[in-house]
């Protein structure tokens, strides 16, 4: 039942056949396995957003194939009968609060499931549950979505996608423009959903700390090409390469590299604050002893 997504030699041109034609994806091969957490990183304009629009067939490859579960999407695929894919793969776009339109928050969250044939009553029950999942207060549900604060709107929009009960949840910079606490809460929500509902997660982000903390597969995009793919540890093991591609390091890893310059040593480069602390504590106490 689980939905595998496989890209094979995917190319995509925007406005193909016009003087404005631009190639946005070049020969992408990629696999997203059920239950995985894939982080997509890369500079602005590197093709990240184009890539994720292929995940639920909003865009069809100009050449090559995308396999979503048992459906194969290529340039010839007709637009009809793509709807079931949209339920399997839910996409939370950048600034998703721009999709809110209903009179009340709860109606907006219930909008998606009703498009897939869920009755209004059932959809409202579902919406209430999802509002709880994302931490929206019940008192807000009867208000207009446009009365909410930025962070609350973001949650309402995410709940609207979760209400589709997708198997794969795709998030395009879900924490952009939120305060540190809002960011942490959204990321915690994503991890919890992944664990509780066994969701597959695809996350576009510029926050390397999030990549280090949560992802188990990292995809690096550059100028429409997939330029590197691996575990966070593999990706962050080459700071020179990252710098050349204008990508950063997680803060713990960055600190470790800097400490390395001044004599500390690390068996493996730490990715998270905990790993850094674990390796640093013994060295610091040794240092303390030798000074005495």
């Amino acid at each position, binding site marked *: 039942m689980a939905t595998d997504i496989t890209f094979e030699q995917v190319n995509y041109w*925007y*406005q193909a056949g*016009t*003087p*404005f034609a631009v190639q946005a994806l070049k020969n992408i091969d990629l696999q997203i396995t059920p239950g995985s957490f894939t982080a997509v990183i890369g500079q602005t304009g590197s093709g990240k957003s184009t890539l994720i*629009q292929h995940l*639920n067939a*909003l865009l069809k490859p100009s050449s090559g194939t995308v396999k979503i579960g048992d459906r194969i999407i290529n340039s010839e695929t007709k637009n009809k009968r793509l*709807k079931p894919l*949209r*339920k399997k793969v*839910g*996409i939370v*776009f950048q600034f*998703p609060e*721009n*999709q*809110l*339109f209903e009179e009340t928050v709860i109606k907006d969250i219930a*909008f*998606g*499931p009703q*498009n*897939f044939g869920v009755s209004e009553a059932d959809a409202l029950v579902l919406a209430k549950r999802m509002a709880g999942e994302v931490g929206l207060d019940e008192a807000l549900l009867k208000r207009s979505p*446009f009365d909410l604060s930025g962070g609350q709107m973001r949650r309402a929009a995410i709940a*609207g*996608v979760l209400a*589709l009960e997708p198997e794969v949840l795709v998030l395009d910079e879900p924490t952009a423009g939120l305060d540190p606490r809002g960011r942490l809460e959204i990321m915690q929500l994503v991890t919890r959903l992944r664990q509780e509902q066994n969701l597959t997660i695809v996350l576009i982000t510029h926050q390397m700390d999030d990549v280090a903390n949560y992802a188990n597969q990292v995809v690096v995009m550059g100028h429409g090409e997939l330029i590197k793919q691996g575990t966070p540890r593999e990706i962050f093991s080459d700071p020179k390469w990252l710098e050349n591609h204008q990508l950063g390091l997680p803060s713990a890893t960055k600190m470790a590299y800097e400490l390395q310059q001044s004599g500390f040593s690390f068996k493996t480069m730490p990715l998270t604050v905990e790993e850094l602390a674990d390796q640093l504590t013994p060295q610091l106490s040794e240092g303390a002893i030798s000074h005495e």
Partner: protein
Amino acid sequence: MNKVMFGRFIPGHSWVHRLDPRAKLVLSFLYIAVVFFANNFWTYLIMTVLLLASVAASAIPLRVYIRGLMPLFWLMIFTVLIQVFFGAGGHVYWQWGWLVVSQDGLNSAGLILMRFVLIILISTILTFTTEPLEIADGIESLLSPLRKFHFPVATLALMLSLALRFVPTLMDEAEKIMNAQRSRGVDFGAGGLRQRIKTIVPILIPLFVNAFNRAIEISTAMEARGYQDGEGRTKYRQLKWHRLDTVSLVIYVVSLSAVIGLRYFS
């Protein structure tokens, strides 16, 4: 959205691209006015040759223009059919009840189609080769004599350039919203009329809300930078009339006078 070619700007350095926007505006208006004077083979020939010469001078392939016509294809077919069936007079070729295909009907259908295509193509040359802001500057400059009558030319020009500037932004935004709603299971262009109208609401409401928010942000940003409406504003882009403009103007005036001459004095 990306398929809409009509009204797009295509960067370049051709003869037409380098013309003063005022020249292009005046020439286009003259051309459109004279299209309505054309009434026989020779006048249409001159109009067509002039148009094709201008297309060639714009250095944009003709097929790009043709693609720009495509969205209006059904409108053209519809207009032609109306003319064919309801333009009575002359020799009758075919009749069925009140539907009549007559010589005059066919003639006027041909003329209307010809005018339609010529007018759209000449305006397309203008929009393909002129940046929206240049068009706004050109209009402002052409309207400036109206200042004497206290007509708010500067305000009008600002409104025009803001509106033109945000057409692509709004189109991008509409596409983003459509993608988001599609992902929530909205089927655009499916079902009956009622169903289709219902699918517009989830696009229009966010689009309007965003447009209003953006308008507020823009006015704040403009005020923060000391914007003041009205007289005495200087321009970053200066319009300059070159010899190329005069030459083009002469070519147009001569050809268009020939059309009017052929109509009345042949």
